[in-house]
Every structure is written in structure tokens, then in C-alpha cells.
């Protein structure tokens, strides 16, 4: 995975739990890197180790950590490095979600070594959309749920995310039914 994901893990642990906790997570994960370069490719195992170590140090499940990272990634890591691009991807949550397939295809152009997930959507309606998530990596569905919740917060639109189709159940991809009400102030 590219350094951006590891950077999200680092920033989240550092900001929410302090520098000492991040030092312990790194030590437990056996990682001795001070600065993750966001467009540098790192082994997937490193990210998994960081998530596992963070979960162990915080005493929570890895799924919970991934969910929190997803929210944090949208609200802080992506916005702080790519805020204008994120804003340009859509002026509303539905617009962003519908642009998501293009967005990730373009990401693949920028990061030639990246094996990005593929997003697609179906059943787009005024208050719902089904997001399709294809990835060669496993176990990151909670991270996607966190991303979707984070996008809801970014657009100030309360959302519910239902994991309707699971790879864990034998499907070839995951599907998430995202429903929302009117955005705040709308």
C-alpha cells in the first residue's frame, strides 16, 4: 500500500492517543520508519502489522481500528494533503460517490505501482446508492465503511452504511448500501 494509508494510521494514533502510544505501536509492529512518504509504495504487511499493533495497544478489535482509520483518512489525511481535489470530486455526497470510480481510476494513473481497489455503484437514488468495492486485499471492508462514514461527515450528510454483500460470505466483492438524509443546512 502507498504511504498515505500508513500515514493515516500514524496520524490517527498520534493525534488521538499521543506520541507515546505511536511509539509503542511502531515497536510492537517492528516498524522503524519516522516519516511515511505518501506516494511511496510500502509492503502491505507493514500496514497490516501497524493495524494489528494499534489494536493490541489500544485493546480494541482490528475492525474497529480500521473503521476509525477510514473516518480519519477522509477527514484529516486526505483533506490535509488533497483537500481541493477531494472538494473537486463532488459538491455533494451523491456526486462524490458517483465520481468515485473515476477518482480511483485516475489514482491508478498517478501511482503506477498501486493496485488500487475498484469502486462502482448501482441503484443510485435520491437518498441511497449501492457502492461496489473490489479489491485484491482482504479484511479492509471495515476501512471502507469508515471511509463512507467519513465522507458523510465531510459533506455534513448523516449516512447509514449497510454491508449487504460480503466477500467473507463467498461473494467476489463487497457491497455497501449507503443511505442518507438531507445534508445539514440543506
Amino acid at each position, binding site marked *: 500500500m502507498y*504511504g498515505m494509508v500508513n500515514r493515516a494510521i500514524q496520524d490517527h494514533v498520534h493525534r488521538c492517543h499521543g506520541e507515546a502510544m505511536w511509539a509503542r505501536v511502531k515497536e510492537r509492529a517492528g516498524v522503524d520508519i519516522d516519516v511515511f*512518504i505518501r506516494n511511496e509504495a510500502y509492503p502491505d504487511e507493514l500496514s497490516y502489522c501497524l493495524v494489528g499493533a494499534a489494536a493490541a495497544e489500544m485493546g480494541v478489535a482490528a475492525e474497529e481500528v480500521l473503521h476509525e482509520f477510514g473516518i480519519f483518512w477522509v477527514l484529516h489525511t486526505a483533506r490535509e494533503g488533497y483537500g*481541493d481535489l477531494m*472538494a*473537486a470530486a*463532488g459538491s455533494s455526497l451523491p*456526486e462524490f460517490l458517483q465520481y468515485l470510480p473515476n477518482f480511483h481510476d485516475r489514482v491508478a494513473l498517478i501511482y503506477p505501482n498501486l493496485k488500487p481497489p475498484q469502486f462502482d455503484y448501482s441503484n443510485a437514488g435520491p437518498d441511497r446508492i449501492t457502492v461496489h468495492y473490489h479489491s485484491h486485499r482482504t479484511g479492509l471492508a471495515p476501512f471502507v465503511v469508515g471511509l463512507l462514514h467519513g465522507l458523510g461527515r465531510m459533506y455534513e450528510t448523516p449516512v447509514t452504511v449497510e454491508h449487504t454483500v460480503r466477500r467473507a460470505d463467498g461473494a467476489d466483492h463487497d457491497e455497501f448500501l449507503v443511505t442518507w438524509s438531507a445534508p445539514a443546512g440543506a
Partner: protein
Amino acid sequence: MSVTIPPERFGLLFPFHLVCDADLVVQHTGRSLRRTCPALVPGEALNAHFTPLASPGPIRPDDLAGEPRRLQLLRHRTSPLILRMQVLVFEEPRRFVFLGSPWLRSASDLTALGLTFSDFAVHDASVDLLQVVQTAIASLDDAREATARLTEQRAQLRDANDALQASQSRFRRLTDTITDLVSIVDLDNRYVYVSPSCRTILGFEPEHLLDRTPDEFFHPDDLHILRDIRARRTEAPRTEQTDYRFRTASGDYRWLEAASSPVLDDDGTMVQVLVVSRDISRRKAAEEALAASRDRLQKQAEDLARANEELAVSARMKDQFFANMSHELRTPLAAMIGLSESLRGGVYGSVSPGQDRIIGTIEESGNHLLEMINDILDLAKLEAGTLTITPGPCDAGEILQASISMVRSQAAKKEQSIRRLLPSAPIRFEADGRRIRQALVNLLSNAVKFTPPGGTIEMRVDTDAEAGEVRFHVEDTGVGIPEADLPSLFRPFTQLSSGLAKSHEGAGLGLALSQRLVRMHGGRIGVTSTPGQGSCFTVTLPWTPPR
């Protein structure tokens, strides 16, 4: 090949397109351009809204028509929008078709123009380039952060290095000047550092010990100390202080007093052992000499104790001998005195005046001898610790009176007068009356002896309520005692140096006996004397004043 593109498809492909007539009056605009420039509606003059980016004048139709491959950059007059356009000219009627999209230098331009990715044609690479730029910017930020972190770490490293060098320098100065031997041993028990003082203490160059183990230098009899220390250190690192012998360059051994302490890393794990040693050979030699001296003294003390014990046995034998002898002497003597009295009393017939005088001398000599034997017997009992006193209620006046009566006949023979001074009120105290009287009679007897004929002897008794004492005074007008004789006055068998004293009979037991008897009562005897004028002996005894 000719392809006809329907207007809605054309708008999808070129959302920022612009169509003007020959006079550059707007005829049509793409959907995204309309969103960005809502005032740019059909009928509006293009020059009212845009100017050439590179030249100050208006946009001229001839310029557009003449150079179809030229990039046209149009600056919007009221917003930051710059259009990057290629112009196609169509004739009959003449129309200018502007195809292109906004010039974007960063993603923030999108935000400033209120545009989203959906406003751009999918084939437009502007958005992708923006992402590339933004990624490059992010990478640059990361590189800056990494550089800053590296700079910070380099500074920390430099500071740490400086501190380390300063510490090493201090350590070097310390170990170069210290007289103690400082060494560091690794976990394989090999010397990794030895201070220069090694030269003066052991005669070795420090390098001689490096990479070698202490075992090679320890005295064979002290190797167990080394093994014990290592065993204890394996259980738990601790500071140890031990003495041992260490081989020097000359091959002999020196005593070292060593304090060894574990050197721990940040995790508390022992990594080395620091040993500070001091040459204590002189001290050890002194200690050995002292021990030898102590042994000699101990032996002498034991010899002395044995001698004392033998002496005590001899003394007890002597006392026993005296006691036995006195008893054996007194029995026949009592018979002699008794028979003499009987002879003089005419029990065995009348005696002539001459015989009476001789018998009197025998009787007097017998009494004197008996008195001496009694004194010797009492003194022997005192020395043997067998003489005991039996305290009871006593009257000072009665004791005084009885004591005087015992010497009255002696005094009468020398025509001496004995004065007695009794207190107005009776003085009662606790004592063995017979023994106190014995002591006082000795003093009175001495007074009679050493007072010339016709002299005066005074005996009085008084009390000191504050001190809780009753005092008997025996004062004479005799020869007195030279000051030089006073210290030996109460020693048994001591003859005074005074010539007058030597002219008087006596074994020198009376005062010694009196003093011991009085001391047994917790009292004391004091004396004041002026040679040629007389002496005053005072017997002081404990007394409880009546309430």
C-alpha cells in the same frame, strides 16, 4: 471519413467550448463555461468578458483566423479564469469555435473557480495533471518533513555525539589522573579497558591486560573469590567489594581492594562490569603485623592470667596459713596468760616481788603477743574474705566510752589524760558495734603509744546531718606523722620512717585493720597530723539523722 457529433455529445466532449460570429459576438457556450461565466450569454461581445493574456489590446478576429494552430489564452475580466483554447474557423458564415478548458495550476484553482471534476470532459487530462501536481506537492511536503526530521535527528545526534565525546574526555581525564586502577570487563570476563595507573600499581602497560581475563592474574588461592562473585552476579547484578591478590609484572602479588559494579544499558541489562581497585598491600602488611602483635599480646595476657591465678592461690594459701598459724599460736598463748594471772593471783602459792615482776612481764608480753596474733588473724580473715560484720543498732556514746575504757590502764601508766566529749543527745546508728569499737581502740592505742608521758588524748563524736555521717575523732598531742609517711600509713606491716615510731612496738597492723573494718561499714578513716604537735584520726560512718 466524416463523423457528425450531435450537440449534446459535443457539449459533453467540450464543456468549456465557445462559438462566436465573425465579430466575436458570442453565439453559444458549453455548460461548464456557462457555470463559470454566467454573464457570457449569446449576444455578448467576447471582448467584454475576455482579453488576450499576452497582449494588452482586444481579441482581434484576424489574429484568430490567421493562426489556427496557435494556442489562444484568454483572461476573464472579472474572475481568475484563464481559458486555454484552440480556435477553429468556419466560413460562410464565418464562425470561431473555441475548444479547450481552464488553465489550472493547482487544485486550489478548481475551488476558486467553483468547478468540480464533473465539469471537465473525461478525456481532459487537466484533472489528472492536477492530481499529479497535487501528489508531487504532497511528496514535496513529505520530503520537507522527512528532511526536517533528519535535520532534527542529525542535530540530536551531533549533540549526543558532543556529549559522548565530552563524557569520554572527562572519563579519560579522570582515569588518566586517578591513582586507583580502573578497569572494565565485558561479559566474557575479558578486559576491554584498563586505566594508565596500571603501570604504577602492577607494572604492566594497560594494553597488556586487554582481552585477557582476571583469572590469569589472580592468586591461585583467591580464584574462588572470582568464581563466587561471578556466580552472584549471574543471579542478580550487584556491587561487590572484595580483597584479593593480583600478580604484578615482577611476578609477585599485590593486595587489591576492588569494588566491582555492573554497567547496565537503558533496559537495565548488564553489559559490562566496572572495577575500581586500590593497592592495599601496605595496609595488609600492617594488618598482618597487628594480628601477630595481637596474638603475642593475647598469649602474654593468658600467661598473666595464669600467673594471677597462681598468685591468688598462693595468697589464699598464705591467708589460710596465717589463719591456721594464728589459731595454733593463740591457744597456747591463752594458756600462758591465764597461768601467769593465776600465778600472780597466788592460786599456786605466794610469789616474791621479783617473781611477780617477771610474771607480770610474761603476762604483758603474752597480752601483746595475743593482741598481735588477733590482729593478724582478723587481717587474714579480711584478706581471705571470710570476716563478716553483723550490723545492729549502736549508740555512739556507749562505743566511745567502751573504747576509752579499753586503753585507760595503758594511758594511766604513762600518766596521760584522756578527755572525752559526748554529744548532748544520744547518737544512734547501724553498725557492728564490736568491730567499730575494735577499730577505735586501735586508734586510741596508737595515740597512747605515740603520745609522750603526761600528754593528752581526746576522743569525741559528732554528726553531719547534711552529709548523713557520724564521726569519731581521736586526737593526741603525740609525735605526729611526717607527710611522707601518710600515703603508706594504712598499709599492713608498714613501719613508719619516723625514728620515734620505730622505737615503739607494733607490727603495723592496727591502722590497716581499722581501715578495712571501717570500709566494710561503708565508711572511711582520715588523718591530719603535724609532726611534733600531734595527730587527729577521724572515723566517718554512714548515719541517718533521726526525724
